[in-house]
């Protein structure tokens, strides 16, 4: 057992740090903060990462990955978070890309993978449906065989960033025989096809990232089917494995906690800094203590994957604990912002109103409620652990 960094790792860290500080400049940061320029900011940042060759550390080298060790990946994530830089959009790079290089045919790989790496296509994920959330396998969106095309009818919901998307990867029903999981296929659909309608859903934080996507007689060429018909569930499940690195978001939570600590130093209540308040300290340290552990839980999982182990239900543990920690820090930020957590206004500067982080704390906290719901709710993740780890039926 040895958890220290080698000389080479330390050099790598400097290289990563230098890159982030020069490539992620203040004007890009500003672009990220406004919803109007958000999409462009994402694409611009991802192009810069691509140019550096670091856009897809988790992909195999032959498809554009970096070939880094798990320690290097850890360092990369840690430095990214410390620099206050968000993760890349997961839908192309973390989700459909790996499905395509693992289960797609040569033509699909040649066409889609470079476009994903270069951020030329914006992808969205069309899994959930109004009647099929936690029970995803009950999904009803149909794809009917029509010669060299499928005809797709149905609707998807909660589709994040569908309004920006060029492509959507969907789970669709191609058979109603046998087990519900056995009649699902994995289909790539061009968002510009006739018959697709995107209806916005405004979320609790007053923003628009969610959508309902309707399909009415949408004709999809069969060449857009991944792998075999009715095997889509298997592909979708294996995709989860690729979401695992950083799923707990420890690096970002650590940075957020540090940030909270600094802000609490400046907040004075009745002449005493909030950071001196024993109740507040207890809130902070409860989180920090669990984070110290979670960081190593994540490393243990990464190390086991690197040595060929198949990560199973550990990812559920990372997801549950990780999202709980994220929400706990978001709550701390609300505590620090006090009254100013409510500020909705965008018209007046924070200087006029009196607080620079109230609004962003509110947005993070409100949208952050979703982290225990999406990607398999925490209740579902606990069901997985109960069954797969503890052997309970």
């Amino acid at each position, binding site marked *: 057992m040895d958890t220290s960094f080698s000389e080479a790792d330390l050099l790598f860290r400097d290289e990563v740090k230098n890159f982030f500080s020069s490539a992620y400049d203040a004007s890009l940061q500003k672009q990220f903060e406004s919803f109007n320029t958000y999409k462009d900011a994402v694409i611009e940042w991802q192009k810069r990462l691509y140019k550096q060759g670091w856009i897809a550390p988790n992909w195999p080298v032959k498809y554009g990955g970096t070939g880094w060790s798990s320690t290097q990946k850890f360092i990369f994530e840690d430095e990214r978070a410390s620099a206050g830089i968000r993760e890349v959009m997961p839908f192309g790079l973390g989700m459909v890309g790996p499905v395509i290089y693992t289960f797609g045919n040569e033509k699909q790989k040649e066409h889609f993978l470079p476009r994903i790496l270069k951020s030329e296509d914006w992808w969205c994920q069309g899994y959930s449906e109004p009647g099929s959330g936690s029970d995803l396998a009950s999904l009803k969106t149909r794809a009917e065989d029509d010669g060299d095309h499928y005809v797709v009818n149905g609707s998807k919901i909660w589709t994040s960033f569908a309004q920006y998307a060029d492509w959507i990867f969907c789970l669709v029903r191609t058979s109603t025989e046998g087990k519900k999981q056995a009649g699902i296929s994995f289909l790539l659909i061009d968002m510009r096809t006739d018959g697709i309608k995107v209806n916005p859903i405004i979320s609790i934080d007053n923003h628009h990232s969610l959508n309902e996507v309707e399909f009415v007689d949408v004709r999809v060429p069969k060449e857009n089917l991944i792998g075999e018909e009715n095997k889509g569930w298997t592909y979708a499940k294996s995709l989860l494995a690729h979401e695992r690195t950083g799923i707990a978001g420890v690096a970002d939570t650590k940075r957020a906690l540090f940030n909270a600590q600094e802000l609490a130093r400046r907040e004075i209540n009745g*002449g005493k800094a909030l950071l001196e308040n024993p*109740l507040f300290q207890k809130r902070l340290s409860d989180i920090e203590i669990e984070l110290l552990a979670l960081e190593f839980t994540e490393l243990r999982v990464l190390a086991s994957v690197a040595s060929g182990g198949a990560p199973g239900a550990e990812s559920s543990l990372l997801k549950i604990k990780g999202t709980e920690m994220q929400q706990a820090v978001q709550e701390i930020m609300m505590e620090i912002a*006090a009254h100013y957590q409510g500020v909705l206004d965008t*018209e007046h500067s924070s200087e006029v109103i009196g607080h620079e982080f109230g609004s962003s704390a509110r947005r993070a906290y409100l949208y952050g409620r979703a982290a225990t719901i999406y990607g398999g709710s925490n209740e579902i993740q606990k069901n997985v652990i109960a069954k797969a780890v503890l052997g309970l039926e």
Partner: protein
Amino acid sequence: MNFDFTEEQVMLRESITRFIQEDYKFDERRRISKSSSGIDKEVWKTFAQLGWLSIPFSENSGGFGGGPVDVSVIMEEFGKGLVLEPYLPTVLLFGGLINSAGNEEQCSDLLPKIIEGDLFGAFAYLERQSRYELTDVMTKVESHSEGFILDGEKVVVLNGLNASKLIVSARTSGDQFDREGISLFLVSADADGVDRVSYQMMDGQMVSNFRFNNVSLGTNSLIGSLGEGSELIERVVREATVAISAEALGIMGELNRKTLEYSKTRKQFGSAIGSFQVLQHRMVDTFMAYEQVKSLLYRAVCGLAEDSDDMECIVHALKALVGKMGKQIFGEAIQIHGGMGITDELDIGHYAKRLMMINTTFGGEDYHQEKFNNLRYDYHSLA
């Protein structure tokens, strides 16, 4: 001992329930929250006609002569309807201060206008640096022969946008954190030297920051005695804290009720999600949380009515519990609604946001728990 409401209180509750169900449906409330003033002045007039604005004022001021129980009935029902109209700032805070400390002229001028629904008031007590501390006051007032000069800033003033009159806490002597030396002044919101910036909060209410640049005030603008405002503030805030706790209880009840209903209709894996034991137990927990808040609220309401000695402690305990249980209840409500709980369309998120704002009004969970600890666990007095 008796936990029953009087016949009049039951009727009051029913009339508000009816108003909300018929005239203040969620869509109507949404329309009002998007209007430029954030409130509906016609609705306010209706409140006046129904006598709701007169409830806490004494009969010789033209009021109904109600007490804390009546106020808590109103606020609980307003909570259920997420009522945006400024009952707390105008009637309970502004009206409460005038009623308890105003001189004859102030009372006879202002209270009838409040009761008739002709005056919106606000209480400006927070400052940029003050967080939740009521006695952290830097806004200054200098006395001179013909009156006073007010200079400073107040922030997040509830109902600031619509208020024509303000009561401002200001320092007439002492240092920033001193409890002594704070006085209350009546200020016209459009007086010379008053700058107002208004903005909306996540629960829909419009609040303001006020900057006072050497504003001249007449001798009759002082409320209560010079330098003795802290006690007045503490008393009115204590009563108002109980009142918004009642509002919070109304919200908690609605969140629990709606979540329970949803869990019986939403099906996944072929069953209503309410059939999953883990969700059942969590709804049992939020049911118990609601009952605990209700009990402590009743304890506080009765304590206020009877003016009992331990009120300070009880109110800190109540507000701490409201903060903690509120988070638990809206957290579960959102979680159990799944994606639906994250939408702006559903009312669940709006109830949650109002609870969050209630948690920050007059101090959050930790603030009150610390005050409670300081009162209860004083090492030296226990020894």
